[in-house]
């Protein structure tokens, strides 16, 4: 492998494949290195891929791509020990104007990476790039177990644990406050069962976020696939260390909740997975460019935890990185000055605009954990009280409900929370 490429992309996930596709289509000589036995082999998400962004590369992709179900309903579960309050949005417009699709990454990612290959990129699987090659402070290639490879510019698309961004000095060790550990199971159920339990038609699916079931700042997620469910929990690494709770125990606690257990009952476990999510937001985004290198997707910490978006930020950052290198190639200039255009364009796009908009949200919720614990519990308690029919007058009931509320959170505390939340989001 003495050949020199225009670009080496490390990682064939959505960000890497999008970058490789963009460059290969413009005629650049692109090499993609994937450490797994195939693209997607190391990839996990509790999530969806988005129509709008995926279409930039593959129009009408849902007709041929290995998708599971299109999301027609978004559910938000506010849970207590043995109850839940459910807020949900279902819309027929999601059936005419698709928005998001559930997929299995081990099936979707190879399909997506194939587009880059068809456009002319060379993909080599089973190859781990574990260091960068530097020459006069400029990145000129990567070291792999098969030998060194050289390029005008390296794109680090090697995921949340990016070894390359760290070796290049663009990122330090991950901060436990900025990463969430997700533990997930894929549980098989007959297709009809899923459609009955979630009240959806063929090809229709549900995406659910569930809070309040645990004693700390945990979130649960649940996605319907064709004949499996993706179910899991996320907990910040800081919280996990502090609370002493064990990841698998939390997942089991979530799964055994009386509102959740019936949804997965009689299902067969197909896979157990764990992955980190870089949810720190704007202030934890990596330095994304230097002489001869760009960083994209999770490697750059591009995840919008508020809107549960990640694959679209990955894909878009990959496209922008690819376009930046096409431009750089024309000028035969891969210096950080030219590559800084990538950061600038990320800042101008929804990717960094959204992260900046919500930059204070991650730290707000970690300093206000009662949004994940006390408030779901109170919502359930008040909902329960409201629905009891007995001899108590409603006048007395409402007084008792108010007393219950203010006993757990003072009027001042409630007002402050409401004000802060408003200020945070507006």
């Amino acid at each position, binding site marked *: 492998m003495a050949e020199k490429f225009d670009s080496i992309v490390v990682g064939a996930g959505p960000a890497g494949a999008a970058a490789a596709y963009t460059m290969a289509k413009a005629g650049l000589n692109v090499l993609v290195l994937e450490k797994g036995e195939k693209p997607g*082999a190391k990839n996990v998400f509790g999530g969806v891929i988005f129509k709008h962004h995926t279409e930039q590369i593959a129009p009408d992709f849902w007709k041929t791509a290995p998708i599971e179900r299109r999301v027609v309903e978004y559910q938000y579960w506010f849970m207590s020990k043995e109850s839940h309050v459910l807020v949900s949005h279902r819309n027929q417009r999601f059936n005419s104007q698709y928005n998001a699709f559930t997929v299995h990454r081990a099936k979707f990612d190879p399909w997506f990476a194939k587009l880059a290959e068809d456009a002319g990129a060379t993909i080599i699987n089973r190859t781990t790039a574990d260091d960068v090659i530097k020459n006069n402070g400029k990145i000129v290639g990567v070291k792999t177990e098969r030998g060194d490879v050289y390029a005008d510019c390296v794109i680090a698309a090697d995921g949340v644990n990016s070894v390359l961004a760290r070796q290049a000095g663009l990122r330090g*060790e991950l901060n436990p406050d900025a990463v969430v550990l997700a533990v997930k199971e894929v549980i098989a159920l007959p297709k009809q069962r899923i459609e009955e339990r979630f009240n959806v038609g063929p090809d229709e699916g549900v995406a659910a976020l569930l809070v309040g079931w645990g004693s700390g700042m945990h979130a649960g997620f649940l996605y319907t696939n064709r004949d499996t469910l993706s179910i899991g929990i996320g907990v910040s690494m800081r919280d996990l260390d502090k609370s002493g709770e064990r990841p698998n125990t939390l997942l089991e606690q979530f799964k055994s909740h009386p509102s959740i257990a019936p949804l997965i009952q009689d299902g067969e476990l197909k896979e157990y997975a764990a992955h980190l999510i870089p949810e720190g937001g704007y202030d934890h985004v990596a330095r994304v460019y230097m002489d001869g290198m760009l960083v994209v997707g999770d490697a750059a910490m591009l995840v919008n935890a508020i809107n549960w978006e990640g694959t679209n930020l990955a894909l878009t950052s990959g496209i922008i990185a690819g376009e930046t290198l096409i431009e750089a190639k024309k000028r035969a200039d891969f210096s950080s000055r030219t590559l800084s255009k990538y950061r600038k364009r990320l800042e101008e796009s929804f990717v960094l605009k959204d992260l900046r908009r919500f930059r204070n949200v991650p730290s707000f919720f970690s300093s206000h954990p009662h949004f994940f614990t006390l408030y779901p519990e109170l919502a359930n308690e008040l909902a329960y009280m409201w629905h009891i029919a007995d001899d108590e007058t409603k006048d007395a009931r409402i007084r008792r409900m108010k007393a219950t509320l203010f006993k757990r959170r003072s009027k001042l505390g409630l007002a402050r929370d409401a004000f802060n939340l408003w200020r945070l989001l507006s």
Partner: protein
Amino acid sequence: MTTAQRTLSITDKLYRDRYKVDEEPHLWIKDPNMCVKCPFNFVCIRVCPTDVYKWEENKITITYDACVECGACHIACYNVGWKHPKGGFGISYKYG
């Protein structure tokens, strides 16, 4: 109602996963002496979702072939050495 789903142990769960095990570990303890008086209350053992780490006979043992490469351990403790398994080895998800 049928009976509740049987709770599987982590070992049972990992039987569902597909691995290609490398002969060379990709995880190691940098300074085993530090573990004897672990300042982090054995955080590697606690945060690992697949029970890779155990405290046995006064040292941390590492069952690296159960690792799903999430990276939690080396974020939690700088004494954990972590690298990617060789290309093609380690966890290979069927679903993901």
